[in-house]
């Protein structure tokens, strides 16, 4: 299996996760979208040195992983490309901010290190929240949620088609890569001299395939909006879920759980 086939498999794994059945999966997509945005906003609102405040926010993804039956390992596997970027965000802070904040066992911890770790924690938690939403919702339901929030249909259709065409392009890339390697034994990647024609052909082939797919959609009545736009409305359980979620986020945001737990033991 080449890397493109692997990528296709990973895309389908997300569909598999989204098609599972759990209390989390059954929640209205717009509600999940809103609470995810709320959670991310709460996480990023912590001060740049407030690592003890940010860390307890991990409780919420932990509960959602359990409620949705979503494997944590899959989350980190999927995030492996984004994680280095997130982790790199604050990597230079220790060089600029050398003020010593605390000493742990005699080792000084500078503001730079603290802010770097806080940024990393915020990034990881935000990615986890986005992953949980995608893994428990699926692209079609997510788009339905966006439409129910009155996001313009053009933007939503564009998002959905982009998602669909990722697999189309990946398939074309997979076929072309296999064809290339069959006639270029021993080469590790695509030789730089072939990049231009390779990318040009990929673009042309993907456009052809995308055109055919679009024709197939038009032939079955597609006129710019997917049918899911008229999906179900949020119910009492969805509202209850949103209320509990928001309450939990607010408690973790404004009650310093670290100090509270520490106070019990000290």
């Amino acid at each position: 299996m080449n890397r493109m086939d692997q990528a296709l498999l990973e895309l389908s794994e997300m569909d598999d996760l989204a098609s599972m059945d759990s209390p989390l999966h059954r929640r209205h997509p717009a509600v999940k979208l809103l609470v995810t945005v709320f959670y991310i906003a709460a996480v990023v609102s912590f001060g740049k040195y407030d690592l003890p405040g940010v860390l307890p926010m991990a409780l919420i993804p932990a509960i959602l992983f359990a409620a949705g039956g979503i494997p944590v390992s899959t989350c980190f596997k999927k995030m492996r490309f984004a994680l280095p970027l997130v982790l790199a965000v604050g990597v230079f802070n220790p060089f600029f901010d050398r003020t010593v904040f605390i000493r742990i066992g005699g080792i000084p911890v500078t503001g730079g290190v603290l802010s770097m770790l806080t940024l990393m924690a915020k990034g990881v938690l935000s990615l986890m929240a986005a992953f949980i939403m995608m893994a428990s919702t699926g692209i079609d339901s997510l788009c339905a949620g966006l439409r129910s929030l009155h996001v313009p249909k053009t933007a939503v259709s564009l998002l959905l088609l982009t998602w669909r065409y990722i697999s189309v392009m990946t398939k074309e890339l997979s076929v072309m890569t296999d064809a290339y390697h069959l006639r270029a034994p021993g080469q590790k990647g695509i030789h730089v001299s072939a990049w231009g024609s390779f990318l040009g052909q990929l673009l042309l082939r993907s456009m052809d395939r995308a055109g055919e797919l679009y024709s197939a959609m038009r032939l079955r009545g597609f006129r710019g909006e997917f049918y899911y736009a008229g999906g179900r409305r949020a119910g009492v359980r969805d509202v209850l879920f949103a209320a509990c979620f928001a309450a939990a986020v607010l408690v973790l945001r404004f009650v310093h759980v670290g100090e509270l737990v520490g106070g019990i033991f000290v």
Partner: protein
Amino acid sequence: MSMIEFQNVTFSYEAGKPVLKDLTFAVEKGESVGLIGANGAGKSTIMKLIPGLLDSMGRVRVDGISVGKDTAAEVRKKVGFVLQDPDSQMFMPTVLEDMIFGPMNYGLTKDEAVAKADRILAEMGLSDLRNRHNHRISGGEKKMAAIATILAMEPEAVIMDEPTASLDPYNRRTVINMIRSRSETKLIASHDLDMILDTCSRVILISGGVLAADGPAERILRDRALLEANRMELPLSYAGRASDPDR
């Protein structure tokens, strides 16, 4: 009234190079017609003109409706088009989702569309494919599922582009049996002349964008001289046997 009607249809992809030239023919309701011709004869263009994917000079009518931008939605409800490559046909994650896509676009509720899809799947003996992911089913299953997505729209006519292409003998036979069992009007473009012989009572032979022959399948597909003059061969089931209707 004819189900599909071409009247003096001319079409060019490039100016001055017509692919179809003054083409006139009709397919009656309930008929099963094979559309044959060598590569580049214009078969695919004809198929695309019927549901209005291309605009032509001349008149194309479906069940009396003139095909055009304004009538495209109405026409496409009446005519289902099974594309040659099922990968181009199916774009939703699962077979069921693909099947309900069309009916829901035409106003059915999800429950109604699902019920219809389930019925078609049962009729075609494909119920086990219902919740399978499109990219995880075999080529033959995908072809059958692609046909099912079109039949779920309950079209009055079905046009098919190479329905048996790249299928193994078992799946080919399954598709042929399925085509034979359907009562809709059918226009089938194919190089598989044995399949055409099995499924169609009438054949239209296109050559260089013009109508080269139109008549009973038995007669046209036995006419070695006519077929060879148009870069085709006798069906395997006739090859080696009487190739001349007079013999």
